[in-house]
């Protein structure tokens, strides 16, 4: 089971500042699988991503990412942090931001006129163009990224995460703060990448509905407990009601899709999410990038 797993957690637990956030999480993800990490605000979903990135150690259990300890295979991971809109006045082109995903960790500056002489540079340019095409951002990639809309910026950032052909994508609430058509569009895009490029995707989401039809596997975290397994087993009225401790209903809509409703912090309630942002001390700082 571990052999071809991109990612595996065994009885993993994590604590932040001496407080146990979650424990007993088992998860195994194979190439081309789409996994959602769900749960209310503040339970430690972003923290799970940090554990997978290796910036935070697991308190218990074992964590293997791409066959190594977390953090060792950073090259092959595409990461999209939670938050973040670029400052409206930032005058750097989207294509340059994507480019940094490819070679941003290299010292020095790109030499002028290198395109004419260096084949490596041409290949890199071609790759950036290709990945921008893949996410459908060609129309605005050459505009200053600060002038792009939230959805456009999100597509560019997904391109940045994809540009090195990662084997694993870690996406932290990529649909947050997008309108419904954009949520659906980005969710479909991520699913397409997952299938086409055989990338394993772990996506943190607050609202499961836009991605429900694409999911292979789900990790549900609520304070004190966690459930993981195939989407069809976890996203049921019984499991969710047990996890949340209040009635949650999983309904089948007219077109056959599942919809999750109910619960005090149920993922489907958008208005709840915003109220929650204010009432909770949230670990992440949603600061605008300059």
């Amino acid at each position, binding site marked *: 089971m571990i052999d071809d797993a991109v990612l595996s957690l065994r009885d993993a637990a994590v604590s932040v500042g001496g407080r146990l956030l979650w424990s007993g999480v088992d998860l195994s993800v194979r190439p081309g699988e789409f996994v959602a990490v769900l749960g209310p605000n503040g339970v430690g979903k972003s923290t799970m991503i940090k554990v997978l990135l290796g910036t935070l150690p697991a308190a218990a259990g074992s964590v293997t990412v791409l066959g190594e300890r977390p953090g060792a295979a*950073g090259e092959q991971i595409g*990461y999209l942090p939670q938050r973040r809109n*670029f400052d409206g006045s930032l005058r750097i082109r989207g294509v340059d931001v994507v480019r*940094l995903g490819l070679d*941003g*960790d290299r010292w020095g*500056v790109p030499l002028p006129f290198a395109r004419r002489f260096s084949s490596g540079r041409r290949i890199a340019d071609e790759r950036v163009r290709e990945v921008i095409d893949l996410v459908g951002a060609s*129309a605005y990639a050459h505009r200053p990224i600060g002038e792009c809309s939230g959805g456009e910026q999100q597509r560019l950032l997904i391109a940045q995460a994809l540009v090195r052909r990662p084997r694993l994508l870690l996406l932290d609430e990529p649909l947050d703060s997008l309108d419904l058509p954009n949520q659906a569009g980005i969710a479909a895009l991520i699913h397409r990448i997952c299938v086409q490029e055989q990338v394993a995707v772990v996506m943190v989401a607050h609202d499961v509905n836009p991605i429900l039809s694409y999911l292979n596997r789900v990790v549900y975290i609520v304070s004190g407990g966690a459930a993981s397994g195939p989407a069809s087993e976890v996203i049921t009225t019984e499991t969710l009601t047990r996890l949340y401790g209040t009635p949650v209903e999983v309904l089948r809509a007219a077109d056959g899709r599942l919809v999750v409703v109910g619960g005090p912090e149920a993922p489907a309630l958008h208005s709840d999410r915003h109220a929650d942002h204010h009432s909770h001390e949230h670990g992440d700082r949603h600061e605008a990038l300059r």
Partner: protein
Amino acid sequence: MSVFHDSYMTTALVAGTGIALACGLVGYFLVLRAQVFTGDALSHVAFTGALAALAFGIDLRVGLFAACVLIAVLFGALGRRGRADDVVIGNVFAWVLGLGVFFMTLYTTNQSGSSNSSGNQTVNVLFGSILGISSGQAVTALVIGIAVSLVLLLIARPLLFATLDEAVAAARGVPVRLLGYTFLVLIGITAGEASQAVGSMLLLGLLAAPAGTALLVTDRPFVGLAVSAVLGVFDVWVGLTLSYFVPDTPTSFWIMAVAAATYACAVAYSRMARRRRRPGVTAAAS
């Protein structure tokens, strides 16, 4: 009639070029990272450092660099991931300026016999004296300017990554904190060197104006970096030349005037470009 005929002008051009290069490059990231206030604070730290050195009777430039670099590192230590917030900077800034006043009093009281020269030194630190420096000092300024520029170019790409996308850069293995500190030290050195040329009060103009101009005229980061450096050198050269041809006017005034004028032109240019671009734009050529 040649500007280069007078040796003090050559000296000033040599020093000014090194300083302007460093200011242009450092300034670009300063503006991009929204750390202009840090640059402003450090340029005033230069003033305190110089006065402290004078008060203790050591070489003015030792005090200046020591103070700038120390406070730069302090800013990093007090901030998150090597980047201090405005409140921290404001507090340290005020405290350091207070110290400056203290050292100034100490110095002028001790030197009451030869009050004239002490007054001059203080004024020089505040407003710059690029025409008064020796050729040895000019070469030092050039060397320091080039050294700062080279280090900055070396870290430019990961620094840009860390600036635009800190979390992703960190996950990719970019030493975000170390880069933050390195950059602060570069600001400190630049502030220390440049304050001798244009003075603590006006240094901010040389740090912010070329960079602000560059960000207005191009949205390509590395082109902008180059434009910022070239503009810095341009401002200093034209400023020096103007001060040469208009007798009895301060150099710093002309340098700042040219810097402000180029910035104003860039604002006008970008407004016009934006207006032209407005109806249904898609992509520009790569």
